[in-house]
């Protein structure tokens, strides 16, 4: 469970996040939506330790994790993916995945040269695990491809795969569906649901695709101008006048109404 209390992040005079308080319940797939510039990604960045908050606290399972550096949060099981997919472009897809689990034997200079056998065994296990992950994501044919050569959607899958290399508790997905076609988006959606059900991952998802949000997320939090505007089930959010005004527009409500009548 993540609790964010009265979080502020100001850049000079600009209040990117302006006193947002949210809760992400363990085991949920929480959606985070809102217009561009609402402060969603900044909120993610503060929670993930990329930015120091101007004020406010972030608490994970009762522990104050405000302002911890990203690699420490990683060890606590808090992971994130990027809006624009990141990858180690000169390494293969499998190597990208094998980079992830921290605290491997081969991380010290000494072990590198003097414990070759133990490292080799550990790396063989990791390679096996990476291949399982690629199977799960249905991209095992790309294992030996250089990650820089992947398409945008495949890179998004790789981002998701990275979170599967460790026992993550909570994963923050930043626009995991942006620039991804329908079929691949469904694959990603299925993977998220399965990870949530089978492995008990908690997800917090920023997304603009309301169908995707509606299918996956409960509850949904709406942000606008750095503040939390509304929170509730996907259906109630789509009916919420303030949200429609700030973000969704009239078209979607009409569509929802038409669907309800049909």
């Amino acid at each position, binding site marked *: 469970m993540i609790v964010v209390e009265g979080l502020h992040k100001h850049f000079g005079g600009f209040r990117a996040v302006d006193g947002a308080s949210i809760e992400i319940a363990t085991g949920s797939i929480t959606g985070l939506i809102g217009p561009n510039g609402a402060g969603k990604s900044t909120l993610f960045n503060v929670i*993930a330790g*990329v930015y120091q908050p101007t004020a406010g606290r972030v608490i994970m399972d009762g522990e104050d994790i405000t302002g911890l*550096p*990203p*690699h420490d949060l*990683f*060890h606590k099981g808090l*992971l*994130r993916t*990027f809006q624009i997919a*990141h*990858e*180690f*472009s*000169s*390494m293969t897809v499998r*190597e990208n995945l*094998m*980079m*992830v*689990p*921290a*605290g*491997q*034997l*081969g*991380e*010290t*200079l000494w072990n*590198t040269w003097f414990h070759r056998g133990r*490292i080799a065994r550990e*790396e063989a296990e990791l390679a096996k695990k990476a291949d399982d992950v690629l199977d799960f994501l249905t991209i095992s044919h790309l294992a030996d491809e250089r990650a820089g050569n992947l398409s945008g959607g495949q890179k998004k899958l790789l981002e998701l795969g*990275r979170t599967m290399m*460790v026992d993550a508790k909570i994963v923050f997905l930043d626009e995991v569906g942006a620039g991804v076609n329908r079929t691949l988006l469904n694959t990603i959606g299925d993977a998220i649901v399965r990870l949530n059900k089978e492995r008990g991952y908690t997800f917090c998802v920023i997304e603009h695709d309301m169908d995707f949000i509606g299918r996956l997320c409960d509850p949904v939090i709406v942000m606008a101008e750095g503040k939390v505007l509304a929170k509730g089930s996907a259906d109630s959010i789509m009916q919420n006048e303030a949200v429609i005004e700030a973000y969704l527009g009239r078209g979607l409500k009409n569509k929802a109404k038409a669907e309800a009548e049909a």
Partner: protein
Amino acid sequence: MDFLNAIVALLNFVVIPATSYGAQLALGALGVTLIYGILRFSNFAHGDTMAFGTAMVILVTWAFQSVGIHFGPLPTALLALPFGIAITAALVLATDKAVYRFYRRQKAAPVILVIVSMGVMFIMNGVTRFIIGVGEIRFDDGGRFIVNANEFKKATGLAEGLAFRSTQGLTILTAIIVVAALFWFLNKTRTGKSMRAYSDNEDLALLSGINPERVVAVTWIIAAGLAVIAGTLYGLDKSFKAFNYFQLLLPIFASAIVGGLGSPLGAIAGGFLIAFTEVGFTYAWKKVATYVLPDALAPDGLAQLLSTDYKFAVSFAILVIVLLFKPTGLFKGKAV
């Protein structure tokens, strides 16, 4: 016979010296390029790190010699090398903790780190001179030649002698071993891969649980190792003089930039490119030309394109020419 003489002269005066000089530049440039790739600034203190490390190696060498420890036909300095590396690595790690880490925490712009490294350079510069003095020091011992000029003449009956000094052979051999070990390390080991990952995409590396302080520390240790090895080989091959190492910074940077900053392969290619052009432009070609060309065409002068005083100008001319056509260097480094 003339043709063979020409080849021997070419080997003797151009190929062998340039290869060993190139190997020294390549090792130095590797250190610069690793620091640039991972810490993201040009480390101007690298030349003086080489000088400091070599000074330590010389002190340990003297200590060994005074108690009668020798390394057979090889220079005693090779035995002292691990000690020199350890002391220098400790110094650069301490410098990092005391100086660079502060600026990393401040997320200082690269240009500020460059200037900071100049400050470090002047301090190291002074410390080295304070410890070992400003004079020229020769510290090579052991066998002098692998191939001796006179014996070569006798054995082959050629007019030209071929001299292959053991320090040159040692330089080339050591460089090959060190480069092979470094590439194995960067490509095959977890530590090396996390260094590459950190260099490739810092944000992602941090969010993959890679500990930046450890990556930085390992980078400094390796850069110190490369600097001390390069410095010692250069000192064995020529001689040790603190000021020469300060000057060596220029061709080393030229090598790293020509190859592409941040690219280890580029550093090696750049090192040899700079060394061969430098030696090629400043060598008096009269001898080789006289052997190859018919008598009527033999040059009257030295046939030297540039005086050796201009050798640094050659490095920079190459630098400018390569960057005009390939702005990120031969091997696509990071944009400067």
